[in-house]
C-alpha cells in the first residue's frame, strides 16, 4: 500500500540520490542534464500513473488525494521543464552544476511533500525542506558581481521571517482549536473564524509563509531583487514551481476556514486587490525583464487569490487552472530569456530589440506568452482569467472583478511593450540566435500548449474540479 501511494515521492528521492552521488564525482554538464532529465521524466511518468491514488500515511498527517496528486504532476512537470530549458546551465558556476540540479530537485521534493501534508507540523517541515534547498541555490551564479549574494540574503531573511510568523500563527490555531490536523480544524475553525477576530489573525499568520512563496502582498518585497539577482535558471524555478506548492496549501487552509464570506475573506480580498494593483503599476516602469516578470508575478498572485478566496468549487478550480497556466506562460518567458542570454546575464528591453529577426521562433514564443499573461484569447491565460472572474462573480464579488479587469487593462501595456520591442524595434547589429533542435521543440511545445489548452480547456479544468472537489 505504502509503496504504490508513495511512489512519486520515492521516484523523486531516487533522482535526488542519483544526483547526490553525481556531485561526488566529476561529470560533464551534458551528462548531468541528461541524467536529471531522464530521471525526472521517469518521475513524471510515475506521478502521472498514480494520479488516482488515494490513501493516508504517517498517522494521517500525510494524505494522498486527487488534489495532491494533480499538484504533484504539475510540480514534477515544472521541474522537468526547468531542467529542460536550462540546457547548458550557463548562468551557474561550473563547479556547481550538479549541486544546482540536486538542490532544485530537493526543493521540488519538499513541495511534493507539502501538497500531501494535512497536519500543521508536517506542513511546516515540508515547507522547510523546499525552502532550505532554495536558500542554498539562489546565490549560485557565475560572474555577475555580488548581486546574487544580495538576492540570497533577502530570500533567506524574508523566508525565515515569514516562516516564523507562520509558526506563531500555528501556536494560536493550536491554542484555539486544540488540534493540528486540518480535517479536525475544518470542523472547528469556521465557527471560530466567524466569531473571534483572533482566529482570523491566526489563520492569516499561518498563511503568511505561503503568501511569501506565492509573492502575494504583503510578503512580496523579496520578489524583484531575488528574480534579478538569481541566475536565469534559478529564477525560472523560484518563479514558478514553489508558487504551485503555495497555492495548494492556500486552498487547503482557506477551505479549513470555511465557505462563508467572513472578515477572513475580506482580508484575503484586500491582499488580492493590493497585490495585483501594486504589481501591475510597478511593472509598468521596469526595464529589466526579470524584474518586470517579478512584478507581474505579484499581480498574478493577486488574481490567483481572487479564485482561492471564493472557497467554492468554481473559484478554487479556476485558481488551480490559473496557477497551471501561470507556470506554463512564465516558464515560456524564462525559456526565451535563457536563450537570449547565452552568458547567463540579465535581459533588458534592449536585448529584445530585433528579436523577431534574430530568432522568429523565440519572438513568437515570447509573443504568445506575453499575450497569454495579458489575458488575450485564445490563450490559456485568457481562459484562466475568464474562469477566475466567473468564480468570483458567482460568489458576488462584482467590485473585485471590476478592479481585476481594470488591472488587466493596465497590465496589457507592459506585456505589449515586450512584444513591441521584439517585433518593431530594429537592431541589425546583433547576430542571429541559432536554436538547437531540442530548444526549438520546447518553444513549439510552449506555443502549442498555451494555444491548445486555451481553446480547449475542458480536460485540464475537469481535472482541477475533481481535485478541488476533495476539499469541499
Amino acid at each position, binding site marked *: 500500500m505504502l509503496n504504490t501511494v508513495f511512489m512519486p515521492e520515492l521516484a523523486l528521492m531516487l533522482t535526488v540520490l542519483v544526483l547526490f552521488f553525481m556531485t561526488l564525482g566529476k561529470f560533464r554538464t551534458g551528462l548531468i542534464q541528461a541524467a536529471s532529465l531522464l530521471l525526472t521524466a521517469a518521475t513524471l511518468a510515475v506521478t502521472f500513473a498514480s494520479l488516482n491514488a488515494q490513501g493516508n500515511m504517517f498517522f494521517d498527517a500525510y494524505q494522498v488525494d486527487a488534489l495532491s496528486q494533480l499538484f504533484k504532476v504539475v510540480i514534477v512537470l515544472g521541474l522537468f521543464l526547468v531542467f529542460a530549458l536550462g540546457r547548458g546551465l550557463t548562468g551557474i558556476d561550473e563547479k556547481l552544476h550538479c549541486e544546482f540540479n540536486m538542490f532544485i530537485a530537493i526543493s521540488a521534493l519538499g513541495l511534493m511533500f507539502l501538497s500531501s501534508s494535512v497536519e500543521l507540523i508536517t506542513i511546516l517541515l515540508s515547507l522547510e525542506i523546499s525552502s532550505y534547498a532554495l536558500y542554498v541555490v539562489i546565490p549560485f551564479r557565475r560572474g555577475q558581481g555580488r548581486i546574487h549574494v544580495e538576492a540570497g540574503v533577502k530570500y533567506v531573511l524574508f523566508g525565515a521571517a515569514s516562516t516564523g510568523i507562520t509558526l506563531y500563527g500555528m501556536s494560536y490555531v493550536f491554542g484555539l482549536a486544540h488540534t493540528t490536523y486540518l480535517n479536525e480544524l475544518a470542523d472547528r475553525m469556521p465557527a471560530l473564524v466567524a466569531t473571534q477576530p483572533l482566529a482570523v489573525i491566526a489563520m492569516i499568520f499561518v498563511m503568511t509563509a505561503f503568501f511569501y512563496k506565492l509573492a502575494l502582498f504583503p510578503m512580496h518585497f523579496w520578489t524583484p531583487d531575488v528574480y534579478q539577482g538569481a541566475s536565469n535558471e534559478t529564477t525560472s524555478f523560484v518563479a514558478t514551481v514553489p508558487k504551485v506548492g503555495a497555492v495548494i496549501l492556500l486552498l487547503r487552509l482557506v477551505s479549513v476556514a470555511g465557505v462563508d464570506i467572513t472578515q477572513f475573506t475580506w482580508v484575503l480580498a484586500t491582499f488580492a486587490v493590493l497585490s495585483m494593483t501594486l504589481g501591475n503599476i510597478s511593472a509598468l516602469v521596469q526595464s529589466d525583464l526579470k524584474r518586470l516578470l517579478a512584478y507581474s508575478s505579484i499581480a498574478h498572485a493577486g488574481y490567483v487569490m481572487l479564485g482561492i478566496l471564493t472557497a467554492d468549487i468554481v473559484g478554487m478550480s479556476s485558481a488551480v487552472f490559473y496557477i497551471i497556466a501561470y507556470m506554463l506562460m512564465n516558464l515560456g518567458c524564462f525559456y526565451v530569456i535563457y536563450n537570449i542570454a547565452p552568458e547567463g546575464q540579465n535581459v533588458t528591453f534592449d536585448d529584445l530589440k530585433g528579436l523577431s529577426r534574430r530568432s522568429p521562433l523565440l519572438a513568437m514564443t515570447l509573443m504568445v506568452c506575453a499575450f497569454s499573461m495579458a489575458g488575450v484569447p485564445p490563450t490559456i491565460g485568457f481562459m484562466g482569467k475568464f474562469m477566475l472572474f466567473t468564480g468570483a462573480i*458567482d460568489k458576488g464579488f462584482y467590485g473585485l472583478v471590476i478592479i481585476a479587469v481594470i488591472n488587466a487593462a493596465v497590465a496589457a501595456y507592459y506585456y*505589449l511593450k515586450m512584444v513591441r520591442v521584439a*517585433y*518593431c524595434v530594429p537592431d541589425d547589429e546583433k547576430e542571429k540566435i541559432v536554436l538547437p533542435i531540442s530548444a526549438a521543440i520546447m518553444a513549439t511545445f510552449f506555443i502549442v500548449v498555451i494555444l491548445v489548452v486555451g481553446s480547449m480547456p475542458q480536460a485540464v479544468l475537469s481535472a482541477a474540479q475533481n481535485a478541488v472537489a476533495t476539499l469541499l
Partner: protein
Amino acid sequence: MEKYLILNTLNFPILSTLLIIPVVGAIIAMFLRGDTLLKFWGLAVTLITAAASLPLWTCFDQTTAKFQFAELRHWFPALNLEYVVGVDGISVLLVLLTTFVMPLCILCSWSYIKVRMKEFIIVSLLMETAMLGVFIGLNTVLFYIFWEGMLVPMYLLIAIWGGARKDYASIKFFLYTFAGSVFLLVAIISMYIKTGTFFIPELMDQQFTFAFQMWVFVAFALGFAIKMPMFPFHTWLPAAHVEAPVAGSVILASILLKMGGYGFLRFCLPIAPQATVYCVPVLLTMSLLSIIIGGYLALGQSDIKKLIAYSSVGHMGFVTLGIFLLNDAGIKGAILQMINHGVTTGALFILIGIIYERTHSREISDNSKLGMFMPIYVTFLGIFSLSSLAFPGTNSFVGEFLVLYGAFDKYPLVGAVSILGAVLAAAYMLRLLQKMVWDDSDGHVHHDHGDDHGESHALLDCNFREFIQLAFLTVFVFWIGLHPTPLLDMMDSSVAHLIHQVDAGSALQQAVEHHGEHHALLETAGAWVKNIF
C-alpha cells in the same frame, strides 16, 4: 436551444469551414518560401474562402429571423458552453463583406508590403478568421474570444508594417480597444451567472431588471462605442488609420469599424431593450456629435488618410444614428450604411495606397493635378468620392437616405441636424477631389509642383491588378446604389424581429412606469448614465 436555430442543411458545415480555411492557410504558409509564392497562396486562400461563403448568399432564407446555417457542438460542458455558430439577416451581409474584402487586402498589398511577406500573409489570414468569428459566433464567450483575439493580428499589422509613428498608433489602438472591452467580459459573465447560459438568443429572451440592463448596456456600449468609434472615443482611429499599411487601413475601415455597429444590434438592443430606450437620447446626441465633429475635422485635414479617417467617424455616426432610431428604416439604413462604408472607404484607402506607392506622400498638396497623368485613377477616385458623399445613384445615398428618412420620421430635429453632416461630407470630399484632380487654385503648390515636374511625368496609371480591385468595388457602388432591394430583403425579417424585441422590452418598461414602480430606480440609473457620458 434548437428553437432559435435552423441547423445547416448544406452538405458541408459552411460556417466552420469559413473559420478553418484561413487558419489552415496560415499554418501552411509558415512552411512556404518565396514572396511571390506566398502572395499567390494568400490570394488563393482568401479567394477560396470567398467562394466558400457564396452559398450564404444563394441559400439564405429571407423569410425567417432565426439563425441559419447553424452548427452546434459541445465545447466546454463544465460551463454549459457550446460551440454554436450561425448567421441571420444582420450578420450575413457582414460575413460576405469580410470574405470579399480580404482578397482585395492581399491584392492591394502586392507591391506595398516589401518586408516580411510570410508574416504578413499569416497575420492577414488569422485576421480573417477572427473577424468572421465575431460575426458568426452565437455564444458570448465565442464572440469575446474572437473580438479580443482580433486585436493581436491587427496590432501586428500596424506595428510591423506601419508608417513613421507606428509605435504610438499601434499601442494606442491596442490599449484603447482592449481597455474598452474588458468590461464586456464582466457583463458576459454576470449575465451567465444570472441566467446560466452564454447562448445569445436565449439571453435575448431574458427579462432582466432595469438596473441590471443598465449595467450590461453601459458595459457593452463602452466597448462598442470605442470600436465604432463614436465621438469622445474616436481618437485612436485617425492615428491607427494613418500609420497602418494599406491592407490594415482597408481591414480597419471596411470590417473592424462594423463590429461596433454589429455589437449594438446583436447585444445592446435585444438584450437590454429598456436600457436602450432609456439611453437613446444620449446615444443620438453622441451620433450627431460624431457626424458633425467628424465631418468638421475632416474638412481641415491636409493628409489624405487622415481626412478619410475622420470622414469614417462621421459615417459611423450615421450608422449609430440609424441604429438608435429604433425603427425599420433607421436600422436597415444603418446596416446598409455599414456595407456601403466597407465598400467605399475600403476603396478610398486602396486608392490612397496606390498613390502613396507612387509619390511616397499622403499630403494632398503633393498629390495634386493627378488628372493630367492618371486618368483611370482619377475616374475611380471620382466615383468613390461621390459615393462617399452619398451622391444619388451611388450606394451611400441609399443608406444615408434610409437613415435620414427614419430620423425625420421619428425625430425631425435630429434629421435636420444630421443633414449638416451630409453637407460637410460634400464639402470635404469635393475639396479633396478638386485638389487632387485639378488644383489650379494655389500658386504656392503650383510652384512646388513645378519642381517635381519631371518626376510627376513618371507617374504611372493604375496597372491591371489595381484596376481589377477598384472595378470590383465599383460594381458594388452602382449595384447597391441602383438596386438595393435584394440586400434590404435579406435583412427584412431579422430587423423586424429585432424591432419587435425592443418594442416588447420597452413596452414592459412603460407598464412599469405606468404603475409608478421603480421610478426612483429609473431616475438614479438615468442620472448615473448621464454622468458617465
